[in-house]
């Protein structure tokens, strides 16, 4: 009986207050869309980090024939110097940080270089002009700085480069995008909360007679308040479902159908990630409605 009563009241309330309910649905939809977009952007960043950091290496370029770098004033790197550097990487304190060390000789560097030079622009280069290097794969890519500090300045080392630097700008951009999305989401969530508050208030006012009689005949406070709370929750959940659908189709059409075919060298997030975010969006929607009801109802349906 009670359940039937509650759901009947919720349905009636939503029907009587369609425009307000609809505006709650739409505002929650947009705000949760921003929340979801921010979360998905972060997931994309994590995915890229996993993907790229696994591949990147530190390159320790050794002194070539002629270099303007002061460190290389004594001429090209000697075999003894190379052995010393290798010893630092493989045996010393860095042992645990380094996964693998490759040596790339002048000739190898030259071959790679020529292989990538399809148009023959650099055909005048000779192997002697190339720099030999150590390519270091790290056990933990985040520990780059430690390795760089330990090797930079060793005799025979020209310059130490971390390939991560190439990506860091992109990540900074994506992080900024996340912050903007999150900020917009917060503003929209506040708007959604205020709207839910107003909706509940209107609904409570329009059903004053009913609630008055309910109080009079002794129905419990929870039964009086439940329909209003559920009304807000139902509308907010509707918004959340729309947001989930929006994110799903966004990922589907923007990423799966478009980016994946045009920019192929990136690992993208997929529909599965949307499903991972979805429960949280629902939780936020219901939580939002709950907070708004608690703030409002105490005043309008007192015992």
């Amino acid at each position, binding site marked *: 009986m009670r359940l039937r*009563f509650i759901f009947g009241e919720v349905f009636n309330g939503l029907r009587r207050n369609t425009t307000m309910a609809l505006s709650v649905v739409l505002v929650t939809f947009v705000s949760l869309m921003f929340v979801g977009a921010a979360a998905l952007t972060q997931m994309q960043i994590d995915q890229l980090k996993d993907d790229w950091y696994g591949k990147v290496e530190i390159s320790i370029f050794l002194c070539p024939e002629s270099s303007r770098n002061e460190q290389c004033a004594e001429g090209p790197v000697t075999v003894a110097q190379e052995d010393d550097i290798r010893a630092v990487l493989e045996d010393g304190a860095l042992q645990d940080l380094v996964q693998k060390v490759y040596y790339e000789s002048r000739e190898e560097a030259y071959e790679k270089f020529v292989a990538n030079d399809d148009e023959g622009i650099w055909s005048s280069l000779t192997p002697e002009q190339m720099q030999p290097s150590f390519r270091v794969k790290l056990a933990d890519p985040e520990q780059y700085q430690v390795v760089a500090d330990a090797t930079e300045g060793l005799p025979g080392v020209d310059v130490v480069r971390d390939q991560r630097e190439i990506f860091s700008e992109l990540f900074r951009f994506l992080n900024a995008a996340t912050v903007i999305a999150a900020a917009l989401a917060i503003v929209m969530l506040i708007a959604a909360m205020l709207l839910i508050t107003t909706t509940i208030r209107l609904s409570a006012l329009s059903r004053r007679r*009913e609630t008055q009689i309910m109080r*009079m*005949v*002794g*129905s419990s*406070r929870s039964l009086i308040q439940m329909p209003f709370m559920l009304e807000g929750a139902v509308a907010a959940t509707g918004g959340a479902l729309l947001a989930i659908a929006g994110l799903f189709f966004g990922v589907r059409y923007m990423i799966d159908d478009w980016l994946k075919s045009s920019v192929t060298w990136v690992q993208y997030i997929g529909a599965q990630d949307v499903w991972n975010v979805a429960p949280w969006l629902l939780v936020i929607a219901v939580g939002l409605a709950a907070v708004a009801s608690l703030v409002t109802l105490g005043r309008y349906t007192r*015992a």
Partner: protein
Amino acid sequence: MIRLDNATKVYKRGARPALDSVSVEIERGDFVFLVGSSGSGKSTFLKLILREERPTGGDVYVAGRHLNKLSAWRVPHLRREIGAVFQDFRLLPNKTVYQNVAFALQVIGKSRHHIQSTVPEMLDLVGLSGKERRMPHELSGGEQQRVAIARAFVNHPPILLCDEPTGNLDPGTSVGIMRLLDRINRTGTTVLMATHDDEIVDQMRKRVIELRGGELVRDQDRGVYGLERV
């Protein structure tokens, strides 16, 4: 059934009390008129019993409960033992006669079976059999008040509070309502009725409690509306 011990209610600090140290005891099955001019404290009296207000001084006991100490979440249980009828009927305009009465049972969680057997009985008692499907606006004032009484009494509360139940009705209709209240009283229900209707009070010859300026000035068995006219 209802007991006030030096009950005092002051709404605003420093203002004249709306109810000033009133002590009254109403037994189970009593029929009591509460009389007094506007502002004499009748409404406050009823509000204290319904626990819509708490006394600022003294004690209020209703149906075995000490209302001063009654926590907010127990209040609904108190209200289930008190039926309330008002001058303005307070029916739900978009519900039928039957639905209006059933509503009172629905919202305290009674089963559908219970509602289906109790509501027709109650409509029969108040003389509205055959009008179950009417809407409130299709009924006369007297009939609307009968619906309100049916709603107040459908859960068989031991106490029935009536706040000017005949205030909007013509004298002929009022007599019908009073007969109904008398009948309910004879089932053992305590009836407390606040009223301005001197004819009814004089006719019924029941106990009369009179308030003036928040003070109890008369408590008389088989009394009349105004003493001075006797």
